[in-house]
């Protein structure tokens, strides 16, 4: 049983790398390209974890996060926020709104893999 991860980001240039990376790590990967798509995807695909970008069209990552946390059925969904907004206030807001972790761009893929594994409660085997 592999864990399912949703990548919600409107930038194809990061999605392509993340998708490749996470598939390589053995996860099932789903992609959403804006806030609305992310929300519907979360509802239908029921991912275990969402990599959530803050700056997205239609609905921001903050709003998606709030909506997920407001839905009792989705409480198990882990949220890892990824954003270019590096200010302390943004981090605090993301965490306050219910994100499980927050990473500021740019980040190393190794750290990301570690963080994802941590959140999903998996041992970090074989991470290169």
């Amino acid at each position, binding site marked *: 049983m592999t864990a399912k991860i949703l990548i919600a980001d409107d930038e194809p240039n990061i999605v392509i790398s993340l998708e490749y990376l996470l598939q390589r790590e053995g996860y099932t990967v789903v992609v959403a390209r804006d806030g609305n798509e992310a929300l519907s995807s979360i509802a239908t695909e029921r991912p275990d974890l969402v990599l959530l970008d803050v700056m997205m069209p239609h609905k921001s990552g903050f709003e998606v996060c709030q909506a997920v946390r407001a839905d009792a059925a989705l409480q198990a969904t882990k949220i890892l926020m990824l954003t270019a907004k590096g200010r302390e206030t943004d981090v605090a807001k993301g965490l*306050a709104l219910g994100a499980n972790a927050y990473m500021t761009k740019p980040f190393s*893929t190794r750290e990301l893999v570690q963080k994802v594994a941590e959140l999903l409660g998996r041992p970090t085997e074989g991470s290169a």
Partner: protein
Amino acid sequence: MKKIDPRLLLAVGVAGLVMAAWLLLMGVVVWSTLQPAERAAVGEVLAPRAALVVLGWLAGLAVVGGALQVLYRRYVGAPARLLEETRVVLAATTPQQLKPRGTAEMQALATAVNELAAQRDGLRADMDAQVAQASHSVQQEKNRLAALMAELNQSVVVCNRDGRILLYNQRARQQFRTLSQGTAAAAGAELMGIGRSVYAVFDRQVLSHALERIHQAMARGAPSPSAQFVTTAQGGQLLRVQVAPVRAAQDHPADTPSTAALSGFVLMLENVTQSVQEESERDQLLHGLTEGSRSSLANIQAAVDMLGYADLEPAMRERFLAVVRDEVGTMGQRVNDLAQRATQRLKTRWPLEEMLGADLANAAQRQITAHCQRTVTLDDVDASLWLKVDSYTLLQALTYLAHRLVDEFEVRFLQLRLQPVGAHAQLDLVWSGQAMSNETVMSWEMDAMRFGTERTPLTVRDVIERHGGEMWFERDRVRHQAFFRFLLPLASVQGPVESALGDESSYSRPEYYDFDLFQMDEQGSALDDRPLSELAYTVFDTETTGLNPAGGDAIIQLGAARIVNGKLLRQETFEQLVDPGRHIPEASIPIHGISQDMVAGKPRIAQVLPVFHAYAQDTVLVAHNAAFDMRFLQLQEATTGIAFHQPVLDTLLLSAVVHPHQESHRLEAIAERFNITILGRHTALGDALVTAEIWLRLIPLLQEQGIHTLRQAREAAQKTYYARLKY
């Protein structure tokens, strides 16, 4: 025509009656000694000559009347005039003598009065000399400091509690001149002047907010409390204003914390438009380079990391390389764009001030309570926090949110919390009960804030961004509470840096000041009931093409001076030639000395009046024969829309109130009576200055007659006006 004293008429009447009675009495006495035959004979003789008797009586009466008139002039009229002249001597501040005339006794009396006056003047000169000596060293010190203040590169304005300006330096005047919309006539004096309200320039709300914070700091016993704010002036200039208090009493020991009320405040102004702009542009550039490049760097890094895998298939490798090329291109483009944008104008970043958290919480509590009529409690407030905020707009945002909670969700109790988190402070506006949807919160954040009928262009989001902070809405399900959380920057140092102002006495005499205004308190009494000596006056005069405004005569010169707190302010005068838009009659030129080519190219009255209106704001108008000048101003009301609603006093009428026995109330005659040297008579400003001097001398004379307030002066003037109409 002078009025005849009723006492004189009465005296002549009584004399007539006494003469008639005496004639009758003598007749009766003679009649009683006569025999009946003699009586008949006398009757026969007298009856046809009765008219002669009456005529004799009338002639006698005329002689007596004439004698009485002469006596009246000598013994009643002359003393009355002497009395008036003596009163002038009594009120005079410079030595003045009476001219002895009339009877020997009157001359002796005048001489005696002169001797008394001389004695008084001698004593006064003596005292003046002593005072002058005593204050000489003080004055020297003041002068030194005045010079220093004039050199200051910062504008300094000192106001009393009511915001009336009592001191300003040259620099401040220059600054206000650039803000002034007027012509050169007043050179900024319609905004900046002794006794003027500083609220003509600054928003009352913003300034009183700053003062309130100073009050709080003083109550706390802060060593040198001050506040600052940034405000936009006319023309979009940004002024940073530093406010420092002037405390009421300095005579108690210095080590007891002064809780004395403010007696005034000092404003230090700085035009920060330029520096804020530059700083903001630099900031924006930096922001664009960091935040904007983060995504690109992330994309590149991720792709490079993937390229590091040895087992990468060639197709994937090509895709990751494409990502790297694409992102590098994007970044290059961004750097170019930013370099270009750096030269353009960017959104202003607002300078923030340092404020004690407890002060902010207290102020918010007070403001929300006052605005929403709801109980606001403080809970978990870390009183020792120093924040870096724009407290005015932040309080607006808090009040606005509270207002909507009360209005739309019927929230009854509100709570404020303030705690530090890392380098920030979190300020919570908490309520119990119903929570709202995220859409609602979003719209509250993005709507322009309104308070009743008052609107601001700012949104809550703008306020947050001004602070570089964040705000969100959160629920506390366990406690059945919901709250708005504000993340606000903390001040980098504990407490604002108290600027070393040095000795307090360093605020001393600059070029323009009147510290006596500290004592003035205008609250609570209407203009009409305030003493004449306390009021501010604009004394003005006009020169015109002729005497008939309705017939097309027009103003060609307007001159004015200000009197504040009993002092004529010669450096804040108003003088403007006006193009009348018509021919100036040759005959009038010798009177005012203004020829056609002098007014060519000068502004028209429609341009001059708005400036004069601003100049005369909040003052009582004074003119000699004011009705004439006012008529010219009022005729412009329809075309310019400028109306002068303030009270008007007329020195001609008031001179008649004070000196009813004088023959002439022409400007020259009064000036001569008061021993005023006339300079530049028959220019508008020259006459206005003479009128002002006269008015200053009339005030104490009116007081002697029990006329103290503006209302009394206006009533008295009206009576003489009616009196003059009758005769």
